[in-house]
């Protein structure tokens, strides 16, 4: 074999045209950024559509939807304790203050055994308090704030908005990933798992504002709420920038809001 041909073969070995020269990591980040962008747009779109229709919905329709979602919470499962009786007394004070809360759900209150400090409202108006929260917070004003926050979610119809958002997003993502049908089932399960429903941070702030107003109306000050958030702030270990990954605004931000606003 002559020398030229040998050089040619060598150069073919060294210089490979069959493999793309692009950087796989850069490609990965561009693709992820694209998908995240699409999802953000999708969420905004779903949110806008959901809010548009739900804000214009009549109370009758709201009750009908809520009854459809009363998913097997039998009151017998949870016993009434002293704590829940105390909370119910507070509830009876809050409900007459806002007309969005009247004539709808009866807002039963239950206690669940969990160490985490949390409280949540289900779509049919049932409110749950964790034992962790009830152990830490004894002050009536702070409890009023927490309860009013959850009732604020209900009054603003945030539960229906987040259900509609989940349904729209779930529907569109199931089209994206419909190669195997399991995804659709998974989406339906995901939607029906309503305990995992989250509200947007804006909704949380609105609920805080609502609760703040209620506390002012009842007691004339919001010291209890401020004390509650200061207690939370001490317990938190996350740095503030992590709030972008969480559903709630950072405690500092919420504290600032209720200190300034009334």
């Amino acid at each position, binding site marked *: 074999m002559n020398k030229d041909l040998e050089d040619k*073969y*060598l150069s073919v*070995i060294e210089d*490979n045209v069959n493999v793309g020269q692009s950087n*796989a990591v850069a490609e*990965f980040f561009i*693709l992820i950024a694209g998908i995240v962008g699409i999802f953000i747009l999708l969420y905004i779109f779903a949110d806008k559509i959901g809010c548009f229709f739900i804000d214009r919905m009549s109370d009758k329709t709201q009750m009908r939807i809520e009854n459809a979602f009363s998913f097997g919470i039998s009151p017998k499962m949870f016993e009434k304790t002293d704590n829940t009786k105390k909370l119910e007394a507070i509830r009876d004070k809050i409900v007459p203050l806002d007309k969005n809360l009247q004539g709808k759900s009866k807002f039963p209150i239950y206690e669940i055994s969990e160490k985490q400090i949390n409280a949540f409202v289900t779509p049919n108006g049932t409110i749950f308090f964790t034992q962790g929260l009830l152990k830490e917070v004894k002050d009536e004003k702070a409890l009023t704030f927490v309860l009013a926050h959850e009732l604020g979610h209900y009054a603003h119809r945030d539960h229906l908005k987040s259900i509609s958002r989940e349904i729209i997003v779930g529907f569109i993502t199931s089209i994206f990933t419909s190669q195997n049908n399991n995804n659709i089932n998974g989406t339906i399960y995901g939607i029906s798992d309503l305990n995992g429903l989250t509200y947007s941070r804006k909704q949380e702030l609105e609920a805080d504002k609502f609760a703040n107003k209620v506390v002012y109306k009842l007691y004339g000050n919001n010291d209890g709420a401020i004390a509650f958030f200061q207690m939370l702030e001490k317990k938190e270990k996350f740095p503030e920038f992590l709030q972008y*990954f969480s559903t709630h605004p950072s405690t500092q931000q919420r504290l600032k809001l209720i200190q300034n606003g009334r």
Partner: protein
Amino acid sequence: MEDIIFLLILLGITYATGSIIEKRHYENIRKREIALIKKPIINFGAKKWNTNRKIKKIELVTGECVISGDYFKNFVASLKNLFGGRLTTFESILDRGRREAILRMREKARGANFIINTRIESIMINDTYTKDSVPQCAIIAYGTAVTYE
């Protein structure tokens, strides 16, 4: 949240291991290709082979190779599936598979002067329609090795 962290760790590890393995494989291929640059010569075209020299041996030589993409490569490719475009992460796998298969065939025909009528084919090993199919590249190269006396 935990799922995402787990996924990122998995992607990072598989990217690191995958690129180390690929780099070493390419070095290995390059070394072997340079060693085999003179003999045997491969002929891809001819259906007929005429020669005046006496032939000592004619035999079938084959080289096979199955290469799989790592988790990171498959992940990037599945993302690309959504937007479209060249699956650049799989290009290197196909290239490695083809070169490895041809090299194995030539190594099998060591001492022969020619490999005539060489063909390269890709074959399907696993069922790609089931849910847990492994993305892989299976290549077989075969030809007739001719040795002169």
